[in-house]
């Protein structure tokens, strides 16, 4: 067959290698391809979920009680069987699995995981488990990207970078919000703004969203009411929403943190039944509150449109926390984004309704509270503050909402951090025995600067135009072995006293210091440079001048290797104290 293929190519005169793309070009092209395929996969994923739900529950939003009890239970059994026997890597939400691929396995995600995630999550969500499709979409996108990167035999570095590109595409398609998806991947998966991959991530996210909108239309997931601040005092209500959102997120994280390792420690065979039991419990809740089953987008939309009383909203929030906790700790594959949005919308709606009841003259649309509540839970539960703010802006399309979003998100985030120092994804990763980098910790790492390590220069600063005799005399009087020479323009040179003496004996009489020194100036540092930079600039030199940024001729001090190492010795134990404790 290969021979026939080669013959055909010769006949038509086509040489594929004549139009070879170099790797950066291929990487960008691949980003678009990944976006398209991820978008298509997510469209099919969403249709698979909806169609399966229709098939198992029927078209009535309030199915008969027998179905409400049986479908999640049987669905849980099937999902557990599939996960344990065929798709073990489909467990979990998908975010940590993608991070593991990036940080441990050089971007490798087997394609089997994509299929497993698609099948198991579609089944789990459609049969009523209280989970969402976004995180699985993220992992599917990363899996598709990884498979393509490997098939195209990209370099190891590019294969490692391609998984986040796919993750952004998958999440953007599921969320229908490219900016939030890009920010989430940067904030939670990559952890830093890398110019090399940012363009590809944006390209992939945009092309996936375009694909999804092509098929499913332009309409947003939720219909957002128009926001306007009725009275500045309304911001206090958003502050209260932040407090309630922060506490609610804590309850859910603590529930997962407590129950998940305990359920995992149960006998092996129980893993076949845990999702079924979770399904049964959710079915029992669903008898009274069918809204908590599944992703629940339609009910978020209803909350935005003020179709529930505040009591109902509060009940839905409370039972969604419970049902999401149950679903997730049972090992059922599925995402946490949609439940977080659901809980946030219900809490926001409840706070808005209560405020509207007591202070009708102060309150804006209740839907706005629901929207801000979604961002609040996102910030506090998933600990992605920047994504949560931009999500509010992107979903509402209204930039004047930024003030309540920032107030509420910040309060919720701070409460969550204070009472739950380890973020959810880090907690899950540690429960699974891996130590994926904590993006939250990485964001907050305090750099050690030159000013922490530098010391005062005790020696003499010579001028490059000094006669040799004068320079020698002054150098001999210097307390330092290394003397600096300044040329009057802010360029620094330096020489050891012994070397200066040796070179001076070989030079002509009346010569100046300039004739002895090389033309090349010493690298210099500023007090705000990080120590890593100082180490790189130091090279084999015994010390480097630390000069003022405004006046390069002004010597602030000197940085030495010994001083830098001493600073690391002092700062290191303090900084890594928490991590050592954690590993122990």
């Amino acid at each position, binding site marked *: 067959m290969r021979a026939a293929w080669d013959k055909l190519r010769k006949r038509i005169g086509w040489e594929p290698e004549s139009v070879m793309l170099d790797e950066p070009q291929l990487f960008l092209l691949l980003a678009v*391809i990944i976006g398209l395929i991820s978008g*298509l996969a997510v469209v099919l994923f969403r249709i698979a979920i909806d169609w399966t739900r229709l098939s198992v529950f029927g*078209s*009535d*939003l309030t199915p008969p009680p027998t179905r409400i009890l049986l479908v999640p239970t049987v669905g849980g059994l099937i999902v557990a069987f599939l996960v344990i026997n*065929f798709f073990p890597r489909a467990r979990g939400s998908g975010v940590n699995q993608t991070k593991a691929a990036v940080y441990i396995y050089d971007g490798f995600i*087997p394609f089997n995981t994509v299929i497993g995630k698609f099948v198991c999550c579609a089944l789990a969500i459609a049969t009523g488990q209280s989970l969402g499709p976004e995180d699985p979409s993220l992992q599917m996108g990363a899996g598709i990207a990884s498979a393509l990167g490997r098939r195209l035999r990209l370099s190891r570095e590019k294969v490692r970078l391609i998984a986040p590109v796919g993750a952004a595409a998958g999440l953007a398609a599921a969320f229908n919000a490219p900016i939030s998806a890009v920010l989430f991947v940067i904030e939670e998966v990559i952890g830093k703004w890398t110019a090399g991959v940012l363009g590809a991530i944006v390209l992939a996210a945009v092309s996936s969203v375009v694909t999804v909108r092509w098929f499913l239309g332009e309409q947003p997931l939720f219909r957002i009411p128009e926001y306007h601040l009725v009275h500045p005092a309304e911001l206090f209500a958003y502050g209260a929403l932040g407090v309630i959102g922060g506490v609610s997120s804590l309850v859910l994280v603590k529930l997962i943190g407590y129950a998940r390792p305990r359920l995992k420690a149960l006998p092996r065979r129980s893993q076949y039944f845990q999702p079924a039991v979770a399904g049964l419990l959710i079915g029992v809740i669903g008898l009274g509150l069918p809204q908590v089953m599944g992703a629940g987008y339609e009910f978020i939309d209803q909350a935005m449109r003020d179709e529930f009383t505040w009591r109902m909203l509060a009940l839905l929030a409370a039972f969604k926390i419970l049902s999401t906790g149950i679903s997730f700790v049972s090992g059922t594959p599925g995402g946490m984004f949609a439940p977080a949005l659901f809980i946030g919308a219900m809490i926001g709606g409840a706070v808005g309704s209560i405020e509207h009841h007591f202070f009708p003259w102060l309150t804006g649309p209740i839907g706005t509270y629901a929207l801000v509540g979604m961002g609040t839970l996102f910030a506090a539960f998933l600990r992605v503050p920047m994504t949560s703010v931009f999500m509010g802006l992107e979903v509402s399309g209204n930039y004047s909402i930024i003030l309540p979003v920032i107030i509420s998100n910040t309060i919720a985030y701070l409460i969550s951090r204070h009472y739950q120092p380890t973020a959810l994804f880090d907690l899950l990763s540690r429960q699974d025995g891996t130590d994926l980098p904590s993006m939250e910790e990485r964001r907050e790492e305090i750099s050690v600067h030159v000013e922490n390590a530098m010391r005062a220069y005790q020696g003499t600063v010579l001028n490059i135009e000094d006669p040799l005799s004068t320079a020698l005399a002054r150098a001999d009087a210097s307390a330092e072995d290394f003397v600096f020479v300044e040329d009057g323009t802010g360029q620094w040179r330096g020489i050891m006293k012994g070397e200066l003496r040796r070179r001076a004996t070989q030079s002509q009489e009346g010569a100046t210091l300039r004739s002895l020194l090389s033309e090349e100036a010493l690298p210099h540092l500023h007090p705000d440079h990080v120590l890593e930079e100082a180490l790189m600039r130091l090279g084999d030199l015994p010390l480097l001048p630390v000069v003022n940024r405004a006046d390069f001729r002004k010597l602030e001090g000197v940085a030495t290797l010994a001083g830098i190492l001493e600073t690391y010795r002092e700062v290191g134990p303090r900084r890594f104290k928490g991590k050592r404790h954690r590993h122990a």
Partner: protein
Amino acid sequence: MGYDIRSFERRLDRTEPDRRCGKCGQAIPWGEPECPLCSERPGYFWLQRRNTFLILVFVFIVLQFVITGYAVRRYHGVERGLAQGWYSRGEQALKSDHPGAALADFRNALAYSRDNPLYQLRLAQALAATGRVQEGRTYLLSLRDRQLGNGPVNLELARLPVREHDSPEAVQYFHDAVYSDWDGNPAVQRRAVRLELVDFLLHSDREAAARAELIAVANNLPPDAKLQTQVGELLMKAGGYDDALRLFRQALAVEPRSASALAGAGECYFQAGQYGQAKRYLDRALQLDPNLTPAAAIRDTARAVLDLDPFIPRLGEQERAQRAREAFDQAMTRLEACAAQRGIDFQAERGDRLQTLYAQATTFQPSVRQRSLGRDSELLTNTMDLVFEIEKAATQTCGEAKGLDLALVLIARQQEGARP
């Protein structure tokens, strides 16, 4: 592809350390037999060349587009069918006065066609019908926010305060509805809204406002006798007889044998005191439709007025005198009947207005003879003045006059208007 449970367990427990690739030294992922990046995998030759593979990927994307498009169309078709089915059920439930069931059905319909304005409107109607007026209002307001000029939404918003008798809010939304966008025939829809508003205003005893709305309707009516008659009748209810008469005449110009228009015109003439014209129109109306009971009663009253009024020009003296005598006798009968109804004794001490009038009448009675009345026009006028006084007093004391007494009251009003 398969994984045995022991290996799964090991992975879960993370007791097994990561294996490292001999070539590159990197960790080999769970479950992989060898390093996926370094190993040369057996595969089809076309997968080995980058460009060929890229072309195959594009072909795959095109195929996937086709498959996804097909699946999406099929699913949307299913959704549309479900939405229509639930909507039809909801309509049935709403018609058979089961708003609770209709509410659930419309919610289901909207789950499959979220932005369908008709389903949203019906849901709001069902909410209002189940007594959840506030929820219905909120729902409609959110609809209105998105479609400010939506006629049906504004109309539904107007109907909610009508239930609560909140007049200013209802009128505001009715007016919004009138000036909103309507599908189909906007002129007809707007007219229907105005007529609904008129009905509300008439029930709220705001005749002047109703007349203003009806005049606006009347100015834009097509040449349709039925419509003109309908608006004319409403104008009569609102007290706009002149405008109503104009409309009835227009209707009769279009359809001269319209019994309703003839009856309406007759009533307008009757209200204007033109009893001769009224009788002619009403006679014709009753010839065409003898079942017009109210018209028959008005016609009879008009006829009585024409038969009893002694001030009609060109009457002979004897005829005038005879009418005055009959009127006086009728007034006396009414006075006695009213006194009996109220238990007033004419023999008792005077003080009551009816007693005073009775005393005057009995004093006057001997002079009320046909011959004297025929000769003395002042006597006739005085007699009729007394008759009018008696009828007015009896009406005030014993309620609305009927039959001949009503005719005398009407003659009295006409004479009051005619005198300087």
